[in-house]
């Protein structure tokens, strides 16, 4: 085992994600505790050319693979093998679409413990982490039994800017890696444009599960119009088919930064918060005083959105 911290870099369409740089920032802090160095692994046809962007690592392991795009099965196998040959103390995986495929396979393939939903990690003595459970309603402090582990990081756990800075890492090119067969990339699809671009709206009225039915969205729509903004939603509403995908805020949707973000019945799961936490003014309304949205909001009211909506609309009408 080395004392190193290995980051699995995530990329799409030729660029690394913010989550990758957040992981590099956390890796740097952990490496200073373990006394090891920071390694980053990038897998793909263009891995060598892309490696230069990972200057936040001391060493970049560029695994040149046949496909430029992510291959869920093949790349998981490659990453598991890489961890096996490098034997780092700590593996960090951004818990995004790529990490969700890779993390378990690295852990099981190397018989390592896996800790998910991590918001902070410490390696001063034992390996410990604080994790968010139950969609952010519970925080858990955990200790890993053993001296090595894989940690899957929630978005926002580290500072992407800190992970971006850094010099020029040494690049080690590993070619002809063979991942496990089973999945083959076919094509990438861009989202269809919606009628409204929620990333440019100054005011967003955002509905969550608390809106209860498709018919009730109209009331939120009217309020949004009166405020000169647009209606957006959290994932459950989009999955129900009540609003178009182009209206989705969060991890699998869009990141927005409006002047005013009025969240109605949005609980505030980490995946949602990821897409809206940098909004200038966040106002949250929810019947549940424990709703994690209140942790990120600037202003909050505990109450029923169906009591509030007519009051707001009346005030605006007058």
């Amino acid at each position: 085992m080395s004392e190193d911290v290995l980051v699995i870099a995530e990329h799409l369409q030729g660029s690394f994600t913010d989550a990758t740089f957040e992981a590099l920032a956390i890796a740097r802090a952990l490496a200073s505790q373990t006394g090891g160095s920071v390694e980053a692994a990038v897998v793909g046809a263009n891995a060598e050319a892309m490696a230069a962007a990972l200057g936040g690592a001391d060493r970049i392991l560029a695994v040149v693979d046949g496909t430029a795009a992510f291959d869920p099965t093949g790349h998981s196998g490659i990453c598991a093998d890489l961890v096996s040959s490098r034997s780092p103390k700590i593996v960090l995986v951004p818990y995004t679409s790529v990490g969700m495929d890779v993390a378990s396979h690295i852990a099981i393939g190397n018989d390592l413990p896996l800790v998910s939903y991590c918001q902070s990690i410490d390696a001063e003595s034992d390996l410990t982490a604080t994790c968010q459970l139950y969609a952010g309603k519970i925080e858990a402090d955990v200790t890993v039994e053993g001296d090595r582990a894989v940690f899957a990081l929630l978005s926002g756990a580290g500072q992407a800017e800190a992970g971006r800075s850094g010099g020029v890492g040494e690049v080690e090119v590993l070619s002809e890696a063979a991942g496990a067969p089973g999945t083959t990339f076919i094509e990438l699809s861009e989202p269809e444009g919606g009628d409204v671009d929620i990333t440019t709206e100054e005011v967003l009225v955002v509905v969550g599960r608390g809106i209860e039915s498709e018919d009730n969205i109209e009331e939120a729509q009217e309020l949004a119009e009166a405020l000169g903004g647009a209606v957006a939603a959290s994932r459950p509403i989009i999955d129900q088919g009540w609003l178009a995908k182009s209206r989705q805020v969060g991890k699998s949707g869009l990141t927005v930064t409006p002047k005013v973000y009025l969240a109605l019945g949005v609980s505030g799961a980490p995946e949602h918060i990821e897409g809206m936490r940098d909004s200038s003014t966040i106002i949250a309304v929810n019947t549940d005083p424990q709703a994690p949205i209140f942790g990120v909001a600037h202003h909050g009211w505990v109450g029923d959105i169906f009591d509030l909506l007519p009051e707001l609309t009346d005030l605006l009408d007058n």
Partner: protein
Amino acid sequence: MDIVVLLRAVPDPAEELELNEDETDLDRDFLGYVLNEFDDHALEEAILLKEEAGGTVTVLAIGNADEVPQMLHTAIAKGADTAIQLGDDLPALDSHAQAELFAGALASLSYDAVFCGVQATDEIDGQVGMLLSARLGLPHVSVVVGANPNDSGLRATKEYWGGITADYQVSLPAVLGIQAARQAPRYVAVSRIRQAQESGALNEVDATPPAPSSRVRIDAVRIPDTGEGAAMIDGDESAAAERILEIIRGAGVSV
């Protein structure tokens, strides 16, 4: 195509959560459980595939909550062919233990694909679906928003972010972590659930909780102080509406 769908009972996200006495877990005594919402999507996608291309849908759940039989009967009413409950009155299990139990049950089933919700809110030691695919050495795609069978297996659409998706050809058998079905999970009339209940379609098999293997020890849990960020508005809806409008105007929006 024969599909096995893993269904998990999770604490109702709408309920207020309380901690146990030594603050290492939820107080589960009076906790209500519901079907993990992503598993509901996994079930929907499996039933859609069955309707389009034939085959069977088998639902598999661990008996760790009183709500599990009802959950399985609902799946039958929606269109699943077979329902299997693993054990009864089992404690809450971590992801590694769940994956082990599911893997054991799958050994005696024949299937082309296993569908599982992409995640659950309590998976502190990894996602059950992907842990299972790693244990079984099967091809896998996580964060799937649509699957279509073809001559060489199935074509799965994986979601990245900002609505970008990628399509993959998947050899079978495989494990898919479903984020969303192509359509919202269907509703089913209570009368049909009752019918499923009376038909005795639920198979219960014995299961013993596996020895803990995750090596992730929970030292303490707490309810985060969510109010620390927000200045809370007092008063009724009328006072709240006035204050919210004032805040909106203060943020530079002219209304």
